[in-house]
């Protein structure tokens, strides 16, 4: 199978229906949803809607089966050891908070957690709050001049008190892919666990958590062509099994009396209340579709667009690219500054050209500080983008400069 760009675009209702055509380059914020996910959710709600787990009638069985099949699909996408390692959450942020609370409960004052300066706020602020609650020491892995996480600095940073290293798989600002192997090696040498924030990785293909050798992986459905309202925490089952519950309520208990409660085993222990059932089914459909795609072709396609974008930006006056300017170990997410022009103004004018770009701090203020900026423009490419999208952006930027200067 080879990658057919036009056919693929047609499978995204918003892109297919947009008039005038939309050059959607804000995929790092949210990707468009694939029709398989939309269809799976509608089918679920129209033919199999019931609460899961405890119903014995056929409709409830069908709903439970669909939900657990979605879990199995996530497990296949991540190459998890078993579906029981897959916890459905409402998004990457809630998955990360789950770890900060449940795994975090085992940490003591003086224990260390290391995060990088390139983290999204969702993988930073939960650890700051844990620091407030328990007195852990939060250390920061520096980034290189072009914004890459500097894994070599771990040698001087990780001590025997280090319990967890939590880093992003791919930066939502620079597109840089983290050297997870180096992180894992350093973590293992001090006995620390490794959490990887995969929010920006999963839209670029299946992940192999076993090969990565990590302990926790988190991502959101809405950034990988699936629905909003759903996310995933993957973790080694033995780790999950040792963790206390976080949210409490129906479906995660054993015996409940006024005096106290016992808890179910993972993953149920971490899925309190009625989960996002239809959304899990939608995510399962999107990931199944992703699993079948010709990723070699798609990577080449994405790199071609990335190259055109980097080259085009380099030619514009006053443009500074944040992060790596080469094609090595990165995904097609490019942030840039235009001297004297505020990103919100830039993106506003680009909108006139049908180009959807995001400007701001991208929920990564420490990284912005590193670059000496309050915010930046960001173009982020998904598999359905075309050279025409890149050209519209580059042409639009000429107009931006004319209008705003």
């Amino acid at each position, binding site marked *: 199978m080879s990658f057919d760009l036009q056919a693929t675009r047609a499978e995204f209702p918003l892109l297919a229906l947009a008039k005038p055509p939309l050059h959607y380059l804000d995929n790092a914020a949210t990707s468009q949803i694939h029709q398989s996910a939309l269809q799976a959710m509608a089918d679920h709600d129209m033919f199999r809607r019931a609460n899961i*787990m*405890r*119903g*014995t009638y056929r409709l*409830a*069985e069908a709903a*439970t*089966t669909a939900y657990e099949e979605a879990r199995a699909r996530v497990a296949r996408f991540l190459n998890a050891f078993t579906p029981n390692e897959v916890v459905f959450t409402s998004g990457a942020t809630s998955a990360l908070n789950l770890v900060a609370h449940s795994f975090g409960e085992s940490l003591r004052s003086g224990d260390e957690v290391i995060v990088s300066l390139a983290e999204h706020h969702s993988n930073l602020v939960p650890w700051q709050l844990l620091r407030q609650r328990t007195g852990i020491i939060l250390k920061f892995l520096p980034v290189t001049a072009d914004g890459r996480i500097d894994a070599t600095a771990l040698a001087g940073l990780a001590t025997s008190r280090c319990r967890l290293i939590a880093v992003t798989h791919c930066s939502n600002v620079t597109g840089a892919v983290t050297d997870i192997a180096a992180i894992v090696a350093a973590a293992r040498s001090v006995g620390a666990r490794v959490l990887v924030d995969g929010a920006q990785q999963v839209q670029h293909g299946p992940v192999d958590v076993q090969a990565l050798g990590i302990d926790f992986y988190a991502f959101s459905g809405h950034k990988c062509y699936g629905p909003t309202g759903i996310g995933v925490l993957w973790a080694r089952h033995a780790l999950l099994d040792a963790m206390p519950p976080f949210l409490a309520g129906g479906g995660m*208990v*054993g*015996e409940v009396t006024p005096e106290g409660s016992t808890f*179910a085993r993972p993953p*149920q222990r971490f899925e309190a209340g009625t989960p996002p059932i239809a959304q899990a089914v939608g995510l399962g459909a999107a990931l199944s579709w992703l699993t079948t795609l010709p990723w070699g072709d798609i990577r080449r396609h994405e790199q071609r667009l990335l190259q055109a974008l980097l080259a085009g930006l380099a030619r514009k006056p006053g443009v500074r690219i944040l992060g790596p300017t080469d094609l090595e170990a990165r995904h097609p997410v490019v942030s840039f500054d235009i001297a004297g022009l505020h990103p919100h103004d830039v993106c506003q004018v680009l909108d006139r050209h049908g180009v959807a770009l995001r400007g701001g701090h991208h929920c990564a203020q420490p990284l912005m500080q590193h670059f000496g900026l309050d915010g930046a423009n960001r173009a982020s490419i998904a598999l359905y983008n075309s050279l025409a999208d890149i050209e519209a952006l580059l042409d639009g930027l000429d107009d931006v400069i004319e209008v705003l200067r």
Partner: protein
Amino acid sequence: MSAELYQQAIKALAQAAHGAGRLPAASASAKLDNPLCGDRITLDVAVEDGKIIAIGHDTRGCLLCRAAASWLGQAAPGATRAQMAVAHAELLALLKQDALDTSAVRESLLPFSPVREHKSRHGCVLLPFQALEQALTDPQAG
């Protein structure tokens, strides 16, 4: 389909409640519940020279769960651990194999075959078998 589920053989098994009641001289016990449906079993077993000599259980569960516990109450005494492990495997095959193939399953378990079609009830039937397995391998204080 559901009619078969509650066929006479199953109802009779549940009614008979073989092995019902705790075992005073248990060598091992296990308490297990299915948090999803609330079925609960406490199962005692007395083992001598690798052979199960007696079994007792306190089962709070549905008809299917009680029938399965009763099946054990009938079949386990006199059997070895290995034999009960095989019975457990046969039941799993009966319920979960992609295609129904009864050739490898003893006849006395066949009344459970309609449960195949009702995934939400698999746990009910398996719970007593899991409790026996746990009592034999990872016993708790009774």
